[in-house]
């Protein structure tokens, strides 16, 4: 027998043949049973129908519950009882079985009702940008209750996770009182929803696990809008180029409104020195999940003559998402996209 279920009678054992369930999700049902009597003695003392090591012939059963966490759903006089998770907490469930020879055994145990729903995005991003794996990262999953308006209940449990891709790692934390797990991966999904994350909430010696099918997305390429010269007041040019980043494996634009912190867009140039003295720097995604690449040579006086050709490499979370060949002169910008485009 598993713990909490005991049989004081040394001759007969109380057995739940279907196994014992110690927890039930709030609002759901779980079955215990069937409950049988079983003789463990070589010298049975009760009735004549029970032999050594044989299952008894119980004919009546009676189940009862103490506490309001679970209620009996349907019959309480059958070998198997169905228990409904009525409220968060623990109830004691007892069952007795009696045979035609007057023998009776009883089993009892605690049944805990857990209210747990792991919540998060239907995806997480490849890489370690703080916008993905930081305090307010997109890759964070929380242990909430089913209504998603409170922590998982009973409170105070532990929240753990596993992934179908073994190298994925989980780091635990707390955000606004919610236990959280942040997933870090370096491996993009092959298809949408192919990554199975299993989250487990354990409390009071019992646990509940729930799987989530999600997609490990990688921001992989970016497409830009057309170039419009915004240097209307002075000499030269000013191009504010807006890029929309796309992800693998689904080939769709990064959804807007998903970031609290925004991924950094790093830009490097080769050669590093731009002859026209352009100051280089990084950007970030914005609230539209796009980013702006500002290439400006806009002056209130006629500038000195200059020219250089540089390769511009744009990355997010270490992944090259776009490259351009730029010829920057004091008079014009020649912009040539080198992809990737898918």
């Amino acid at each position, binding site marked *: 027998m598993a713990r909490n279920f005991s049989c004081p009678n040394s001759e007969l054992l109380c057995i739940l043949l279907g196994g014992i369930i110690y927890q039930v999700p709030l609002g759901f049902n779980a079955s215990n049973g069937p409950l049988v009597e079983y003789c463990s003695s070589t010298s049975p003392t009760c009735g004549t129908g029970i032999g050594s090591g044989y299952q008894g012939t119980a004919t009546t059963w009676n189940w009862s519950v103490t506490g309001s966490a679970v209620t009996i759903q349907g019959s309480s006089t059958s070998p198997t009882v169905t228990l409904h998770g009525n409220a968060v907490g623990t109830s004691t469930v007892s069952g007795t079985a009696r045979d035609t020879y007057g023998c009776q055994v009883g089993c009892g145990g605690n049944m805990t009702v857990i209210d747990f729903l792991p919540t998060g995005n239907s995806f997480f991003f490849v890489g370690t940008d703080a916008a993905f794996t930081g305090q307010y990262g997109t890759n964070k999953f929380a242990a909430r209750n089913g209504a998603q308006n409170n922590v998982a209940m009973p409170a105070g449990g532990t929240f753990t996770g596993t992934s179908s891709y073994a190298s994925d790692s989980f780091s635990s934390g707390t955000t606004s009182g919610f236990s959280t797990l942040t997933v870090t991966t370096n491996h993009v999904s092959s298809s949408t929803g192919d990554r199975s994350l299993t989250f487990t909430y354990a409390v009071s010696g019992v646990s509940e696990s729930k799987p989530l099918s999600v997609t490990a997305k990688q921001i992989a390429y970016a497409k830009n809008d057309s170039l419009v010269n915004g240097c209307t007041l002075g000499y030269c040019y000013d191009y504010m180029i807006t890029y929309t980043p796309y992800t693998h494996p689904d080939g769709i634009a990064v959804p807007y409104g998903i970031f*609290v*912190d925004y991924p950094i867009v790093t830009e490097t140039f080769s050669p590093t020195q731009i002859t026209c*003295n*352009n100051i280089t720097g990084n950007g970030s995604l914005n609230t539209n999940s796009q980013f702006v690449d*500002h*290439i*400006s040579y806009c002056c209130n006086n006629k*500038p000195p003559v200059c020219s250089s050709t540089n390769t511009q490499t744009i990355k997010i979370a270490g992944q090259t998402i776009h490259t351009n060949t730029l010829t920057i002169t004091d008079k014009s910008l020649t912009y040539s996209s080198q992809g990737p485009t898918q």
Partner: protein
Amino acid sequence: MIRPLFALLLLSVVLPRCVLASEAANVTEPPLNYRVERFTLDHETLLDGLKNLSSGSQPFSFGFEMPLRAEFRDVATPERIFEVDLKGKTIRELLDYMCLIDSRYAWSTEGAFVNIYPRATETDSSYLLNRIIPTFAMHSVSNINQALFSMADQLPPPREQVAHVQAGGDSSYPLKPWTESFGRLTVRQAVNRLCQHLGPNSNWVLSGSSDFRGFGFFRRWRTLETVF
């Protein structure tokens, strides 16, 4: 590489502190007393360090002024490279330290900004960023070029050359045209205002030569609100 502990000791005992003149303003001041778990420069420049420091968990805005070479055609002097690994220092201590190891620079705060500038320009009233704009105002400004040129136009003679010279990053202004008056400001303070209008934790860099001064403005989108 200078040994970090020795350098900090030297800083506090022997050398005068970098200039620190904080003006009260209705903006979030840089978190100078925040203790940074670890700060490194791995074959990086002071500007690299400032970018890393300002984009950490306690972000802040900054303005960085490189020493201007005499003429545009002069070969630019490469920024100095450092190897640094410091633990448990405050942002104030780290700024002091960076101004120590690259002693060409001094730092101060102004409102939300940390400003780092060539120490040699501190008392030079003709240096562009030290010049005074008696009354500084923006009228229906919708982009950084318009703002920068308007600022230059509001300086008393002589007329100053300025340029927005940038490759990479985002310097887009909010869509709503900007109208605001500030009164008397230095050009450095005015450039801080232009940059601040990009959004919190934005930064600017001045580079180039005395005959061709270029600014870059970098907006950092960041909304660290508890919305989880």
